[in-house]
């Protein structure tokens, strides 16, 4: 049996097992139902959203065509804001830059970032002897469970409260009841201490305005505010596809992203331009006030420019990571993140082909039903079935 077949056999077994997992089915059924209801409500309440999504589609198309100049502009703006901007061609380069900034033996608090997952950032920093804490509740659960995200926005969608209680009781070495309020509270207390002792905070970004160099991060838990606001150093890792021309464009992208991620309005929208500063004494600007003294933004390519350079696949970079397509995918509805690697489901298979290689993506590419319902949901109308078909043809003809 060839590797392809062996890999496919293992993958299929795993997929079948996931589809039989009643906890997973129950959790996903509830999630799909509430996602659909929430989005319907949000779109009813803010009926301008579909038109705004069309505008964002045009912004994304323009931004992809002008990515190089937007990158230069953003890097200059960040520097002039007294931050530091870096460009990393691939995973190794990105990790090296972060490691050089962080050093060894530090405490790091980290917000949820798909790029972080892609780079294996937490593990890489831990290997350097750093203590790294995921602060998104779902990611924190998975860090303790030594598991991987099963949805890009709701990473621990597959872990019911009873299992969370077991994991927490073991970790905190005291009895934690299977009560969600108590589970949230115990993590809050634990991480609060970490925020205030951490040397470095790390975040991703949902969108970056090239003209002002501002990064925008959407969140609900308030953990990103603390990660990016409390430690003396803030590092943001950003895929180059997140760049848009202006701050106004960035706001449009942000609103469409959270709306299709099933929020009328999210808990928090963080906008960060540089290190904290004050001019309160004699109007002399001094950096490092209450927030971080140092601010670093690392723009990462890692396969994205290949997508950018191919008109058949460029649209994959328009993905806002709202996660809406996954809730509509019949395969994802019964298998969750088992249908994926770092990136999940149909759109994830296209990303995987460019980030990890077509061979790694092959089982995922053939899992897609090409039914097209994801396109109906996608605010960017990304034609996943078309790209999946093309990539299949490349897989079999390579």
């Amino acid at each position: 049996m060839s590797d392809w077949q062996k890999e496919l056999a293992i993958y299929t077994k795993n997929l079948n097992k996931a589809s039989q997992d009643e906890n997973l089915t129950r959790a996903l059924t509830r999630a799909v139902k509430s996602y659909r209801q929430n989005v319907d409500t949000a779109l009813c309440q803010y009926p301008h959203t579909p038109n705004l999504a069309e505008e964002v589609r045009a912004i994304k198309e323009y931004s992809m065509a002008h990515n190089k100049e937007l990158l230069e502009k953003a890097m200059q703006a960040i520097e002039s804001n007294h931050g530091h901007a870096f460009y990393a061609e691939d995973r190794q380069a990105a990790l090296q830059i972060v490691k050089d900034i962080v050093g060894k033996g530090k405490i790091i608090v980290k917000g949820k970032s798909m790029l972080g997952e892609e780079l294996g950032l937490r593990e890489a920093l831990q290997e350097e002897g750093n203590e790294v804490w995921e602060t998104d509740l779902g990611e924190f659960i998975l860090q303790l469970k030594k598991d991987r995200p099963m949805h890009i926005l709701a990473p621990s969608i597959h872990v019911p409260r009873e299992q969370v209680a077991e994991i927490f009781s073991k970790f905190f070495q005291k009895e934690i009841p299977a009560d969600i309020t108590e589970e949230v509270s115990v993590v809050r207390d634990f991480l609060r201490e970490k925020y205030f002792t951490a040397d470095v905070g790390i975040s991703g970004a949902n969108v970056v305005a090239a003209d002002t160099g501002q990064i925008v991060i959407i969140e609900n838990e308030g953990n990103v505010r603390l990660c990016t606001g409390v430690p003396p150093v803030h590092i943001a890792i950003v895929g180059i596809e997140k760049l848009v021309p202006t701050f106004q464009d960035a706001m449009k992208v942000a609103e469409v992203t959270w709306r299709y991620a099933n929020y009328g309005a999210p808990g928090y929208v963080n906008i960060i331009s540089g290190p904290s500063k004050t001019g309160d004494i004699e109007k002399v600007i001094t950096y490092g006030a209450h927030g971080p003294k140092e601010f670093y933004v690392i723009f990462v390519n890692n396969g994205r420019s290949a997508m950018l350079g191919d008109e058949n696949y460029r649209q994959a970079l328009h993905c806002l990571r709202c996660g809406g397509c996954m809730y509509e995918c019949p395969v994802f509805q019964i298998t969750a993140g088992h249908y994926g690697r770092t990136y999940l489901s149909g759109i994830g298979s296209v990303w995987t082909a460019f980030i990890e290689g077509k061979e790694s993506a092959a089982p995922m590419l053939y899992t897609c039903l090409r039914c097209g319902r994801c396109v109906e949901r996608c605010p960017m109308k990304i034609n996943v079935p078309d790209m999946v078909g093309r990539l299949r043809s490349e897989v079999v003809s390579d």
Partner: protein
Amino acid sequence: MTTKKEIPPVLEIIRSNIMEYNNPLALNCRQNSSWVRDLELPAQGEILFYTGGEYQLLPYLAPLLKTLTFIDPASKAFSLLMEGRKLVKIIGITPEKVLAGVLAQDKERYNSINYKAAYILKKLGFDLCYDADVEMYSGALLYELGFWQDFKLYAARVVEVIRKTQAKTVVCLSPHAAEMFKVVYPQFNVFPEFNVKTFIELVWEKRDNLPQISDKSTVVIHDSCRLARELGITKEIRDIMESVGVSYVEPVRNKEWTTCCGGPGKMLFPEIARIIAERRVNELAETGASKALLACPYCLSSLQAGSKQERNIIIEDLVEFLYRGFIANV
């Protein structure tokens, strides 16, 4: 350096069957056209009735997939099974015979859908021709599975064969075939010079001539992905239902939001495909309907396999449903 990986045998066997035998399971054309019976369809004419052998495939797929549930699709045993046609050369039996036995009833049902569809169209006044001797499969699976170089060559062969029928319009029983001719062939620079229509569209044109149907069951419509999303055909089915005097209900997800029957996943992920089909049957049954109507061979096969007895819902092709109106009025 990673080594080059071989593709799973099931994909290669389907590819070579289509390229060599014009059919994904290497079924022969004569058997595929046996449904014609007394219809007397000429080989040439204005309107070509095109089955693509797709409904005919289904009875073979079902038991095959049952086997697949127990045999790992990546295994040697599976390759052997799929290479049935090669057995013909070695021991002189056809894969049809290998897989026969279990299927007599299904075979009759799926074959007769072709007959019933042609019968309905004739009764509605369409003069059909049918290419019984050389009708080729549309090649949809070559496209779906990624064999695009083969697909381009194959598509040109299909168009050439159809050209010989002198048809100006080709009416496709399967929405997958219609999608190929209408949408996909041109993307590969193969431009059929005939009009492409689905069975649904032709019936819709003459829906006022359809006999009324006195079916007391509550009917729910299942839209197929290809018809609804690729071809944009949803309203036509509802209009037809109104014309025959049958009221219908809609499931939670339908029309452009319809839920896939799971069929496309059958070849490599039969277990996942089965669960998806069961879940769609549940969506349909939750409407309280006792009959689900659809217009796609793969949906019919998948949802039939996914319907459990306790759900108590009949899965029927629109062709079967409409045909009953004609018979009742004979």
